[in-house]
C-alpha cells in the first residue's frame, strides 16, 4: 500500500469505549468506580479501492464495533474514519447522503435483518427510494428484478415475504438490498457465520463475483480464518480492541509473525487430519473492561517478558512484510514453529 492510490477507506487512532458503570446510586453507596469497556482501542487501517480487507479475531475482540463505527451506527470515542479522504467523524447531522449511498452493510443474521412484514421487492427497493434514485415504480420494478437475478434469484421472488426463503436465499436478498444503491463499499459483518458450509460457499462465491463485476471494496468481518483466507487481499488480526498483525493476506498466512496469529492458525480444526493429536492451545480472552497491562496478549504468550507486561507494543514493520505489534517480533527473539500458549492461571480466568 503506497501513496500512489489513495485508499477508499481509512481509520486513524479509532477508539470506541462503552460506559458500563453500575447505576449512579450503586456507585455512590457501594463506592464503585465508573467502568469503561474498551471495545475498540486505537485502530489504524487502510482499505485500498477494489480490495477486501478482513478483520479476524475471537468473539468480543471488537470486530462488530468497528463495523458499526464505519457505517455511522456508533460515534467514535476518538480517532477518525475517512472515505476518499473525507473525514466522516465530524458529522454532527449524519453523513451527507452522497456518502451514505456509497457505503452499505450486510449483517450476520439474515433472519433478524429483513423486515418480516415487507415484501422482498420493497426491502430491496428501500435504499433506491431513500436516495431518490429512480423516477417511478415501473423502473423500480425493473431494477429490483435485475438485482434479484444478479444475486442468483428469480425476478418473481420480489412478490414474496422473507419467511418464504431459506437462510441462504435471505442472505442473497440482504446482498441485493445492500448493492441496490450502487455503493462502492460494503461492510460485511460475519455474513456467512449463520449459514451451513454448502450455502456459505454459494454466498462467498457470489460476493467475489459481485466484487469483480461491480468493482466493490469490502470490509469483511469473520472469526473464521479459512473463510478470511479465501476472501481477503489484506487482513487485520484483532485482539482485545487492537490490531496485532496486519498486512497482505498472503504474507500473513504464509508467514504469521505475531504469537496470537500463530495461535489462531494453530487452533483451526484441520480437515486434512494431519494434526489430530496435537495439544490444544490454552487460555481464554481476558475481560476488555480490565485488560492486562502492556501487551494484552502477554498472559497467554509463551514469549512474554518484563517489557511485554508493562509496555504496549506498537504496530511496526516485521520482516515478513506485515506489520506486527509485538516486542518479541521487534526484538527478533521469536522462535519459529508452533506456539504453545501458556495455560491460564486462576487469576487470569474470566469470571
Amino acid at each position: 500500500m503506497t501513496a500512489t492510490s489513495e485508499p477508499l477507506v481509512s481509520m486513524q487512532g479509532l477508539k470506541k469505549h462503552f460506559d458500563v458503570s453500575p447505576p449512579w446510586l450503586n456507585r455512590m453507596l457501594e463506592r464503585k468506580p465508573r467502568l469503561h469497556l474498551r471495545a475498540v482501542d486505537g485502530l489504524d487501517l487502510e482499505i485500498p479501492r477494489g480490495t477486501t480487507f478482513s478483520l479476524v479475531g475471537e468473539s468480543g475482540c471488537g470486530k462488530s464495533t468497528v463495523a458499526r463505527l464505519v457505517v455511522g451506527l456508533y460515534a467514535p470515542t476518538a480517532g477518525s474514519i475517512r472515505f476518499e479522504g473525507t473525514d466522516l467523524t465530524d458529522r454532527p447531522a449524519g453523513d451527507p447522503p452522497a456518502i451514505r449511498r456509497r457505503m452499505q452493510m450486510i449483517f450476520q443474521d439474515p433472519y433478524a435483518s429483513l423486515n418480516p412484514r415487507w415484501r422482498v421487492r420493497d426491502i430491496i427497493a428501500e435504499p433506491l427510494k431513500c436516495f431518490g434514485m429512480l423516477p417511478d415504480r415501473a423502473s423500480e420494478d425493473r431494477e429490483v428484478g435485475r438485482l434479484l437475478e444478479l444475486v442468483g434469484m428469480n425476478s418473481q421472488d420480489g412478490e414474496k415475504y422473507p419467511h418464504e426463503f431459506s437462510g441462504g436465499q435471505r442472505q442473497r436478498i440482504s446482498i441485493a438490498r445492500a448493492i441496490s444503491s450502487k455503493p462502492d463499499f460494503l461492510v460485511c459483518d460475519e455474513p456467512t457465520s449463520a449459514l451451513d458450509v454448502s450455502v456459505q460457499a454459494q454466498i462467498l462465491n457470489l460476493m467475489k463475483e459481485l466484487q469483480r463485476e461491480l468493482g466493490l471494496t469490502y470490509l469483511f468481518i469473520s472469526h473464521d480464518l479459512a473463510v478470511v483466507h479465501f476472501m481477503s487481499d489484506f487482513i487485520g488480526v484483532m485482539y482485545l480492541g487492537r490490531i496485532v498483525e496486519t498486512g497482505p493476506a498472503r504474507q500473513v498466512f504464509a508467514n504469521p509473525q505475531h504469537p496470537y496469529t500463530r495461535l489462531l492458525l494453530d487452533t483451526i480444526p484441520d480437515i486434512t487430519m494431519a494434526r489430530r493429536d496435537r495439544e490444544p492451545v490454552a487460555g481464554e480472552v481476558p475481560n476488555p473492561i480490565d485488560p492486562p497491562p502492556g501487551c494484552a496478549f502477554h498472559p497467554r504468550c509463551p514469549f512474554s517478558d518484563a517489557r511485554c507486561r508493562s509496555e504496549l507494543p506498537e504496530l511496526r514493520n516485521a520482516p515478513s512484510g506485515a506489520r506486527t505489534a509485538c516486542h518479541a517480533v521487534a526484538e527478533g527473539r521469536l522462535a519459529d514453529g508452533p506456539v504453545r500458549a501458556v495455560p491460564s492461571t486462576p487469576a487470569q480466568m474470566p469470571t
Partner: protein
Amino acid sequence: MKQSGPLLEVRDLSVVFDTRRGPLTAVDRISFDLSPGEILGVVGESGAGKSLTGTAITGLLERPGRIGGGEIRFEGNRIDNLPPEQMRRLRGRRIGAIFQDPLTSLNPLFTVGRQLVETIQTHLDLGREQARQRALELLAEVGIPAPEKRIDHYPHQFSGGMRQRVVIALALCANPKLVIADEPTTALDVSIQAQILAVLKKLCREHGAAVILVTHDMGVIAETADRVAVMYSGRIAEIGPAAQVVKAPRHPYTEGLMGSIPVIGTGADRLTQIEGSMPRLTDIPAGCAFHPRCPCARADCAAVRPEPRPVGDGKVACVLYDGGGI
C-alpha cells in the same frame, strides 16, 4: 451385558411429526452401530435430522414428534419402547447428554458443586463428603483451574468455555457408557472449541464412554471422530471411518460438502458449490433425496431410494455404488 457386541444398535429408525396434513418424516430409516468407547461423528446441514437422531436415542423426543419405526438397542436391550421412568434412570446413569448451550444443562440458581453432588448422589451410592470429593476430581479432570474455589461458584460466574467443561463433568458423573454431545462447541470460539473437544475426547476415553458427536462442522469431525455418519434429508448418505469419509468421500453429497469448505493453503478462487438447498420436510423428493442437486444423478435416481451398500470400510447410499462398489 455382553462385551463383544456393539454398545448401541440403531435399526431402521424413523422419527415422524404428526401434523394436521399427516405425518412428516424427519428421520427416515437410518441404521448404524456404535462400539464401546467409539466416537461417532454425525454431520450434515441444519435440518438434516442430526439432533432428532440423538433425541430419539436419549428418549427425549417431544410431541408431536415420535419414533415412527425401527429399533434402538443399548447393551443388547431394546430401549426405544421403555417406560419413561426406566428411560430416565438409564439416561442419568448409562447415557449422558451435552448440548450446544451449556445453560440448558445447568441450573442458574445452584452452585456447580451442588449440581454435581446431587447428580452424583442420585446415581452412585456415595455420602455427601465422598460425592463432593468426586465432584472436585471431575472438575479438575475437565480442566477447571482451582476447583476447590470454583466448586462453590454459580454458572454465570464461568465463561462459556468453562461452563461447557462443567457440563462435561456433569455428563460424566455416573460414568455413563454413552455420551450424546449435540453441537457442544458450536457456540464457542475456535481456540476454546479445540480445548473442549480435547477434554471431551480424553475424558470419554478415560471413562470408557462412547460418544455420538453431532455437529455441522467437518473440521470438528476430522479432528475428533473415529467414524462419521453424513446425514442428508433424514437419511444417512454415507458412513465410515473418519479418514475415509473426510479424505476420500464417495457419496456425491459428501464430496460436495467437503469441496465447499474453504481450506487454508489452497489458492482456489472459487469454492465448489452444491446448487440449491436441502429440501423442506414437506417436499423431500422421491428416490434419492439428493438427486435434484446431484451432479452425477441418473434417471433411476429419481425413482428408487438407494440403500446403504458396503464401500471400502464404510457404507454409501448412492446408485453409483449399488453394483457392489467400485
